[in-house]
């Protein structure tokens, strides 16, 4: 369970100070599915980075399961990321020289999983997203949708508590978008994840049970009865 209290994030750009987040209060329950929307530069990605222990707030608390991430040393934050949080990025962020299977394995490396077990788990994860036949393919040999499925397999292979997705369908066409969303929805339901996704896509947002909107660093959350 996430609890964000008065989270502020300021950046300095030259002489100006930018308030990416401005006193954000937010609670995300375990197994929740939250979609975040908002204009470009509104603070969506910054909020996701706070949730993913990728960055620290300038002030406020980011509490995950009772631990304030803002106060953890770097080594502990790294461990939290490796054990509890899965990321899916808009640009897939796969290592171009590694095969699909090896890319998925990179998520297990920091957990100290043995090579053989790593290979088995990676193959299993790729099979679960429909890429069981593409284990040895390089990212460059796959379509955008397939690459994003590899990224999803990489995020989920370590069985995290939380899945954070930053515009996961932003680089995909409509049919691929649906395909990826189907995979993500299925995983969310099957694995009981806490799933937070940033998107510009209103069609996706409409289906979300909770919808948060960030404008100029301020957040408003509403329940979606239709979803």
């Amino acid at each position, binding site marked *: 369970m996430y609890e964000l209290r008065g989270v502020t994030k300021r950046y300095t750009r030259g002489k100006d100070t930018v308030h990416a987040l401005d006193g954000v209060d937010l609670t995300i329950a375990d197994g929740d599915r939250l979609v975040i929307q908002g204009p470009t530069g509104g603070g969506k990605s910054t909020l996701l980075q706070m949730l993913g222990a990728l960055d620290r707030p300038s002030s406020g608390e980011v509490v995950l399961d009772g631990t304030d991430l803002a106060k953890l040393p770097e080594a502990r934050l790294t461990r939290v990321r490796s054990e509890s949080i899965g990321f899916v990025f808009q640009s897939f*962020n796969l290592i171009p020289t590694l095969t699909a299977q090896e890319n998925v394995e990179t998520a297990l490396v920091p957990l100290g999983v043995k090579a053989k077990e790593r290979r088995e788990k990676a193959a299993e994860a790729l099979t679960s997203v429909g890429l069981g036949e593409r284990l040895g393919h390089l990212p460059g040999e796959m379509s955008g949708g397939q690459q994003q499925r590899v990224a999803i397999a990489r995020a989920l292979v370590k069985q995290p508590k939380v899945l954070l997705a930053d515009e996961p369908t932003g680089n995909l066409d409509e049919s691929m978008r649906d395909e990826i969303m189907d995979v993500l929805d299925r995983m969310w339901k099957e694995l009981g994840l806490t799933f937070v996704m940033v998107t510009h896509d209103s069609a996706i947002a409409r289906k979300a049970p909770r919808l948060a909107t960030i404008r100029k660093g301020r957040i408003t959350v509403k329940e979606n009865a239709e979803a």
Partner: protein
Amino acid sequence: MFFTYLRRELRRRRKAALVVASGLALGIALVIVVDSVSSGMGRAQDKVLQSLYGLGTDMTVTKAASPTPSTSDRPRFRFDAQEDGSEEEQSTDRVMVQGFQTLAGTTVGKVAGQDGVADAVGGLSLQVVKVSGQFTRGQFQQDGSGGQGQGGGPGAQQAPQGRVEGGGADFDVNSYSVYGTDVTEPALGPLTSSAITSGRTFKESEADAKVAVADSAYAKEKKLRTGSTVTIKGTKFEVVGIATADSGDAAANLYIPLKQAQTLGDAKDKVTTIYVKATDSQRIDGVKSAIQKNVPGTTVTTSADLADTVSGSLSTASSLAAGVGKWLSIVVLAAAFLVAGLLTSSAVSRRVREFGTLKALGWRSGRVTRQVVGEAVVNGLVGGVLGIALGLAGAYVVTAVSPTLQAQLGGGTGGPGGGFGGGGMGGPGRQAAAKTLDVALTAPVSLTTIALAVGLAVAGGLVAGGFGGWRASRLRPADALRRVE
């Protein structure tokens, strides 16, 4: 995963890896060539020095320089003029001590008794000049007018008037060097720089025997063989062996037992040079100081002193290798390290998203840094292998071409019989003011040089990896991901 990732990345960035490796290879190759050429110079110099004083000698002791000897010490030749028509050949030879400076034979014992001296042996260098030929008296031709007394006064006796016609001399001068060697100490002294190629060397029992060993070049010129006889100042010596110098010229034309040389040179119990072997090569300077302090009136010359007197193209090339070559290698290596570092750092900048993603997945900074350093070290090793191959090829070419270098020895220092200028360590054949020797340059590559190259390759990789790793370790995952958005 480390090696898989490493292999794939190096394959993917072949060109960049090759640029880094080539830069390091160039620097390493230069180090190998300069090092091997320097080593070759050292060997050439050793060869030159060895040809002077033989194997095993660490220093020589000679009498300290003193003023030029008086004219009475100089050799004089006297011949009687022969009657006209006489074809009788006259000959006379003079045996002189080289440099006219000798030490008492007891000095050898004093030197041998110094702390740090393993062995000392004395030798006497002689120079023999033999003049032989015909000397005919001129004929006095009297003119008819009679003579006039020198006094011119009345009553003075009238001398016959006329002039001397004809007469003259037809002679040959043969000069050669003789070295009196201590036959009881065959392991030390100038004869050790030659190998016996025919016959035998001296026996210990031949301390006062009339036997000689001839230098092969001199033997060829004078048509001497084992069993031949040579006459020095009326004394006949049997040639028992022919010796060939290992390099350069031989130390003397003829070698005879020391006692015989002392008799011939009228230098009883005298030596010109004492050859000294130290107990430890690290103590040579100390031994030199001890001898100079405890045995007054002597000049001690070590091989290092002698090396200082080597001039000519060998010296110039040696200085170039030690100076320009060394600094050029250092500059090229430093540049190669810097370029490798900057290229690796630049490669990290291009891979910010990749490393940021890995950090987001939970990779510790140390693991990411290791990956970067690992890639750089492999680049360095590839550079090392290329550099070693290139360096070996360069050294091979130098050895194959074997450029000839000239070494001039003993130019200008020391007085007669003392120091190198006058021969000093030079021994009997080297008493001239300067001596020029031709030496072929080689470029031997030692295992130490190869180890140095490998060390430099690893160091180059670590330096480059250090640049890149430092940059990678400072990446924050959020910044890394933000930069690509």
